[in-house]
């Protein structure tokens, strides 16, 4: 039914149906909107406002407006740009791997196989352990001398001397990616699984009858159908990955090879107490994340505007 047809379908109290439904829509959205504004407006607005001041944590009441001086200083800091680069690389690599693994797990869980209930629970374990703790746990496992990872690799003969996982810049980056993938793949898998669950079964049955190979079936039918949900999962994982903090902080400290934008911003805000400059870093982080999200939404043709118009 098109909007025009709907308009002609009815009209109570002088309003068209579309107008009536728009009113209902606002009523339905209002509680959520009020909650979001109540919780987020003040903290976010405050951060943005502080980014134009020289506020210091020890005395938040006395500050002076400094215009965009904080941003100029930030953009001149090579460490900031290094952090931006690290963050983007980290996001692309880890979200990419998480999507692939998440798809494999979700497809497996969606197929009928014995014991998948346990498998499903097992897959969620990493998500259930508080991040700070799981990062410490991995730090322990990746210790070069008494860590279990090196011990197993040595025993299997894959390496001939212990690797310093968290000390060598490249290995440290690989290690934080591995831990983040471990931690976040279940999230991907669960959202993709939910999308697979709502696919109509008939399509597959038709495909089976026609003898379409499973891989083509997946690429031609499944993937396009779950794309919207997949993209939402990718967007939210991407948002998390671009703000990644605790995994990196616990595993490698302030090692410049793995410093991300959040680690940088936190250092300024908390360790250096420089609320003005730190807020500028946080706001810039926000702008970069927003830009990246806009690109993903555009490239992925995520349907933000049309409702129920597909098909």
């Amino acid at each position, binding site marked *: 039914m098109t909007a025009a047809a709907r308009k002609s379908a009815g009209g109570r109290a002088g309003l068209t149906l579309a107008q009536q439904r728009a009113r209902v829509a606002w009523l339905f959205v209002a509680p959520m909107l009020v909650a979001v504004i109540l919780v987020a407006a003040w903290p976010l607005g405050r951060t943005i406002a502080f980014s134009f001041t020289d506020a210091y944590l*020890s005395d*938040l009441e006395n500050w002076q407006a400094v215009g965009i001086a904080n941003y100029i200083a930030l953009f001149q800091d090579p460490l900031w740009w290094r952090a931006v680069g690290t963050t983007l690389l980290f996001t692309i690599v880890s979200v990419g791997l998480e999507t692939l693994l998440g798809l494999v797990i979700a497809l497996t869980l969606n197929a009928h196989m014995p014991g998948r209930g346990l498998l499903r629970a097992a897959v969620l374990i990493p998500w259930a352990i508080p991040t700070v703790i799981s990062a410490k746990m991995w730090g322990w496992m990746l210790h070069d*001398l008494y860590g279990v990872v090196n011990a197993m690799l040595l025993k299997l003969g894959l390496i001939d001397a212990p690797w310093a996982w968290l*000390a060598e810049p490249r290995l440290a980056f690989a290690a934080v990616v591995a831990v983040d993938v471990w931690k976040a793949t279940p999230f991907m898998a669960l959202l993709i699984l939910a999308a697979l669950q709502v696919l109509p079964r008939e399509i597959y049955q038709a495909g089976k009858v026609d003898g379409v190979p499973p891989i083509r079936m997946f690429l031609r039918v499944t993937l396009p159908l779950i794309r919207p949900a997949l993209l939402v999962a990718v967007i939210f994982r991407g948002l998390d990955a671009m703000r990644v903090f605790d995994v990196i902080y616990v595993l490698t400290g*302030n090692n410049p090879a793995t410093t991300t934008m959040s680690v940088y911003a936190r*250092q300024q805000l*908390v360790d*250096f*107490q420089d609320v003005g400059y730190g807020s500028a870093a946080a706001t810039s982080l926000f702008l970069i994340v927003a830009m990246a999200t806009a690109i993903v939404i555009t490239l992925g043709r995520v349907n933000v505007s049309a409702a129920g118009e597909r098909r």
Partner: protein
Amino acid sequence: MLRLFALAATILAVSSGFSAGTRAEVTISISCSSLGIEQQLCQSGAEAWAQATGNTVKLVPTPADANERLALYQTLLAAQAKDIDVFQIDVIWPAILAPHLVDLSAILSEEDRADHFEVLIDNNTVDGKLVAMPWFMDAGLLYYRQDLLEKYGKQVPKTWAELAETAKAVLDGERQAGNANLQGYVWQGRAYEGLTCNALEWIASYGGGGIVDPDGTVTIDNPQAAAALEMARSWIGTISPRGVLSYAEEESRGVFQSGNAVFMRNWPYAWALANAADSPVKGKVGVAALPQGDGAEARHAAAMGGQNLAVSRYSAHPDEAADLVRYLTSAQEQKRRAQEGSFNPTLRSLYSDADLVTANPFYKDFLPIVESAVARPSTITGRRYNQVSSAFVRMVHGALSGQGAASASLVDLNSELERLSRGGNW
């Protein structure tokens, strides 16, 4: 829908009902560690004070991780919260938190002031105000394997060169005997505050100063400092594993305590653990002052650590809070803490206390080490200390992982610190 809202509201109201706390007339809240002997000692000490004065105390557990604890304190203090009256603060925090803390000079008698280590009192004095009372202290120590040194006929090293040589000799011998996992020297090389302590010890032991002088001059760019860093770099891959660049205290203790290192740099806490009943190196461990460097002004240098007690400016009962601090930092209480939990006193006289020396023979060796302790430049650099430390760590970690010569990084660091301090005016 309305009914659902009402339900949600009820749930919220019920869950908030769990918050009702008890408040007596004068209740002093003190932040302490949350578990183990540290909490028990804090609790028993604070309760003894409460009994004697008729007040009540409430313990607020705070995280052991220094970064998390500092973030929590800053949030509370920036909001001028009255929730905690007495804060347990690290030795590097007095200047950072000073604007929120009250002057405690009044509760420190002249004789007690003379008995406290000067380095601690100086450290806690910000703009002429004593903002925190020393509670217990730490200093970097050299742990060594007595059995291995004896086996190879070696003395406890007095200089870093001797340490490297001894470690090399023991390693060569042991590795030939099939002990492939053995390491020479483990320390704290991760990019965090612990590396500041380690590197400061090397540089000070070479007579290379303390990064920033007490008068504010940036002194880090000097040949002795460069020599100290080059020496540390030469260890990596020879007597120290490459992984040492990711070690904090517990990672190094793990290597040493499982019998896989000849030497270790660590704080006093590792002593009791290395000699615990189930420790593979029990009875084979010795401690000494960290070795001297090279050059005319070479000395033994141990970085100073430890904890202080401070009173919040926003406390509703600052006098009672200060009295609690006075009680907890008194000689009697520090002695009890040293006996029951081996927290090292901040009072000189306690190191010759008969009871303590019998209980802990290592104390009389500890006194000269403590006397020679070097403080990190946290008081002079004030609220910028963390920036200084972070820049220092970045430079040291870079130089150790082999990115550029140490002397070149020192020039960069020097100009960065000059810029931070606006030419030495911190």
